[in-house]
């Protein structure tokens, strides 16, 4: 469960990205085609719609080694599931409140709705997030607490 070590720099933060397979994944794919260079410390889980992402999954990810979680969906008004992403935005904002309350901080949850659907945008949004997470302290104490919760065992 250790973060990857490098010689002198702090290792790149680990981010789990829940990407809707429309806007967000298209952006990721475009970044790939353009061969934009990004740190290798993120993993993408495609979802049908950002509304599919359970708040539970975000907490699990933070408990399992992620320093941050990104939820990426289509822009508001552009969801092909009849504005399901509107509800996702609200839910994730509420999750941000929860993260603040328990001391994990909403800065570890990135919400991108319609801002990462092009290659350069995906790279910029993710790159900025990784940079912001850099200076944050390790989550180890919280991870131990969360991992001990019955729900996560």
């Amino acid at each position, binding site marked *: 469960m250790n973060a990857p070590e490098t010689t002198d720099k702090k290792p790149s933060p680990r981010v789990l990205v829940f990407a809707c397979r*429309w*806007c967000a994944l*298209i952006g990721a794919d*475009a970044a790939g*085609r353009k061969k934009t260079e990004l740190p290798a410390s993120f993993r993408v889980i495609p979802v049908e719609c950002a509304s599919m992402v359970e708040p539970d999954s975000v907490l699990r990810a933070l408990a399992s080694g992620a320093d941050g979680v990104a939820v990426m969906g289509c*822009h508001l*008004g*552009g969801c*092909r599931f009849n504005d399901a992403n509107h509800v996702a935005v609200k839910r994730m904002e509420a999750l941000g409140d929860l993260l603040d309350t328990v001391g994990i901080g909403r800065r570890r949850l990135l919400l991108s709705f319609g801002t990462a*659907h*092009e*290659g*350069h*945008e995906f790279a910029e949004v993710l790159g900025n997030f990784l940079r912001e997470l850099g200076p944050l302290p390790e989550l180890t104490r919280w991870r131990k607490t969360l991992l001990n919760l019955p729900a996560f065992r």
Partner: protein
Amino acid sequence: MTSVLSRTPRQATSDTLPVLIEGGGAAGITAGLDLAAAGRRVHLIERSGHLGGQMLNLDKIYPTDHCAFCPLWTDIRRLQTDPRITVHLSSRIESLDTTGEGSLATIRTEPPLIAPERCIGCGACFDACAPGAVKPPGEHVYPPSFRIDRDLCNRCGSCVGICPSAAIDLAREEERETLKVGQVIRAAGFIEADLKPLPEFGYGLHPDIMTSLEFEAWTAEAGPNDGRIVRKSGGGRPANIAFVQCSGARDDRLLPWCSAVCCMHALKQSSWVKRRDPGIDCCIFYTDLRTVGRDYYAYSRRAEDKAGVRLVRGRPGLIHPLPGGGIAVKFEDTLTQKREIRRFDMVVLNGNLRPSAGDRYENGAEPPAEACGFAAEPADVAQSAWQGSAAAMMAISRDKEGPCRA
């Protein structure tokens, strides 16, 4: 209820002749999918190397401001994977012989020099091509195959040897195929008419005097500037942009009709310019601001009131590059009767759209029954789509017992 109704009635049999659709844009794709869903076979003939038509050249569509290609992508993939639909890319209908029962259509195809079914997208040919004839896969196109521009290719063959999957054959020649078809649907869409015959628009005199589709490509998020609004000449940020409506349209010298989609198109383009860079002044020069569809008028109000797009009623009489840089636009604001010559950094000419099959519309009161989308009448995405469905229905009805429209 008689027993005949409990069976599937009038289902297409293998004897039923396939429908021929000319054009693989919004209208043609919709017609093709509808026909296939009803059990009919379809031959869809598309002139370019990919499906999607002009809608794929749009960055965003109005009034939803969605990316244009996304809804089209899923329809295209369904079309490509439907066993009843045969897509002929890089093809044209060379002739149509309607003398017998059904028609004999001769399809001429110029197959791509890089076979899309063999291209693995590695890009080795692109790296090896000295004259730059190899182009990367089109944005949002499936399959994502590299392409060779035949006009730029010098037939050196470097790409052939380097291709790991033997996808390239520079000797591929055009092919012809004859198809027996039943009904025909015309859905060839539109192209931009050349504005050089109308010198007052200044087209061709300055890199920053562009047609609306050229501006769309230049400012597209997936385009060469990643969505940033910059001048073509010198690359700096423009202080202001003029959108000139009815360029070439409603004009007996070139296109005596209204191209229908341009007012909303300009409102959309200018709204997006303001969204990306609110400091750029946008001015739309219009005659009648046509906002007839659902939410179109509300869109125009948001553009003006919220985004700050300016509207001036008047068609500029002269657009000309200035010696010191920039472009002079001479106009009269007909609602104030004030005349002015104003300097603009960029000018977008909007309006010069004509049907791509043939350069005119017939002078009748109704378009030909088998035409749909822009091929029939200037039409936006929604109209092209429902007309495609209507054309499909008509094709089915005609096959049986004549047109169903009373």
